[in-house]
């Protein structure tokens, strides 16, 4: 369970990126977050990965209040909260396999564990046969799948996807969304921030709409409307 209570975020004095957001997301939920550019979607996700701190209110993940999280605790939070981005953020000089292994190494996994798990994860995202390829040898959709594989390296409870289909054509986008659904079915809570109305409408899952930092609508099996 993720719970936001009256969360506000001010980057500067003259405007709030988020205003008194109160939101409850049960474990295993799949939530799309929509809204115009600048509405605060990315900010909402960044608060969950502790990339940013809220100015007001509290955020609690499974009883863990991450509002005042200490600097040294951030890595532990990040291992429970996977993130993927529009621009993938892969290491260009490492293969798909190595990119995923890198995340596991960072977390202190044993070498044998890495050797066993990485192929499994790559298989889950349907990339096993491209394990030895470098990012620039892959299509955008494939790169995004590598980055999802990397986010899954720790078997996170939550996956934050910030416009993961932003750089992809319709076909590849749908591919990625299918993958997110699959991961969600395996038990991971998924938060998807997106501009893609086709995707949101086809999902028929919960939709939270933000406008100027406020939640203006929250529908089960909702549709994309601004």
């Amino acid at each position: 369970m993720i719970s936001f209570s009256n969360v506000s975020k001010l980057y500067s004095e003259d405007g709030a990126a988020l205003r008194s957001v109160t939101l409850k997301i049960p474990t295993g939920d799949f939530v799309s977050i929509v809204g115009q550019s600048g509405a605060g979607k990315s900010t909402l996700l960044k608060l969950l990965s502790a990339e940013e701190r809220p100015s007001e209110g509290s955020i609690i993940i499974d009883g863990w209040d991450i509002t005042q999280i200490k600097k040294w605790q951030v890595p532990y939070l990040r291992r429970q909260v996977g993130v993927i981005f529009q621009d993938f953020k892969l290491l260009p000089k490492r293969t798909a396999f190595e990119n995923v292994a890198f995340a596991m190494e960072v977390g202190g996994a044993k070498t044998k564990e890495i050797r066993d798990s990485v192929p499994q994860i790559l298989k889950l995202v349907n990339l096993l046969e491209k394990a030895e390829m470098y990012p620039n040898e892959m299509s955008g959709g494939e790169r995004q799948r590598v980055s999802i594989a990397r986010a899954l390296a720790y078997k996170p409870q939550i996956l934050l996807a910030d416009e993961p289909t932003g750089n992809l054509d319709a076909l590849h986008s749908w591919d990625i969304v299918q993958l997110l659904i699959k991961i969600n079915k395996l038990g991971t809570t998924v938060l998807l921030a997106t501009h893609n109305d086709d995707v949101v409408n086809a999902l028929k899952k919960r939709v939270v709409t933000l406008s100027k930092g406020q939640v203006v609508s929250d529908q089960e099996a909702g549709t994309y409307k601004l």
Partner: protein
Amino acid sequence: MTMIKTSSWRILRNALQNFQRNIWLSLATTIIMTLTLIMTSFLYFLNVLGSEVLNTIEEKVDLSATFKDDIAEDQISIIAEDIRSRADVQEARVVTSEQALEDFRARHADDPFIEESLRELEKNPLPSTLFIIAADPRQYQTIASELETERYEPFIESVNFENSRTVIERLIAVMSGVRNIGLVTTVVLASLVIMIMFNTIRLAIYSFREEIDIMRLVGASNWFIRGPFIIEAVMVALLSVIVSTFVLYPVLETINPEVQRFFFSGQAEPFSIYSYALSHWTTVIGLEALLAVGLAVFSSLVAIRRYLR
């Protein structure tokens, strides 16, 4: 526990990779660091040598008084006894002119020219001498002044003390001059080490920034991110300690005979700076390692604080 072991191994491996990727910069840092260590060790040995030389000179300070030609042996004995009874005098030994001549003959027994010259002399040219050893080296001055008073004026030709004191003073001056130059050089070199290390690490952080951002993203601990930079610096430090040790000891062994000839000639067991360095190797290498690792950790921490948030 195994997780810590695995991580430590990876941090070490990453540090080695950093070292390899910046091989020229790493080697340059190693060289400057080595020079700093050699300079510091040189200062250390200079200090040891200095105090050792002063010791032997203090031992050698023989305050002596030569008697006038025609003073009777009885009179000489009385004066010797007089001096000997002073609290600040440890020993006062008389060498009569006959004895002095005999000694001189014995020393030059195989020199026919000196033998010849001595035979031609009608009168013994060597004076009777009183050799004095003070209880404490600092008391020589007082004793010398006493011997120069009117009381002894009729008997004593000259008091020989000034010479060795000026030698000591000159030696102290030279040593402290060399030490000051050495200190300045060390400080300059050490600053250079800090600057180079700082910049090496800054460059490394810059070239790894993408990796570092992604490490943070996937939950790398601070130690995992910073460790390699600090370890790399410490590796350079330890390498410098090894190199400087391999330079220092052969150099000491080579110059040791010269040093002995110069400072400790005529001694039965002259002080050997090389044996000293060998028997004190833990101190020498320990001090070097302390300095090197200290400099490395300091510069890497400063760079990391500045450029790794």
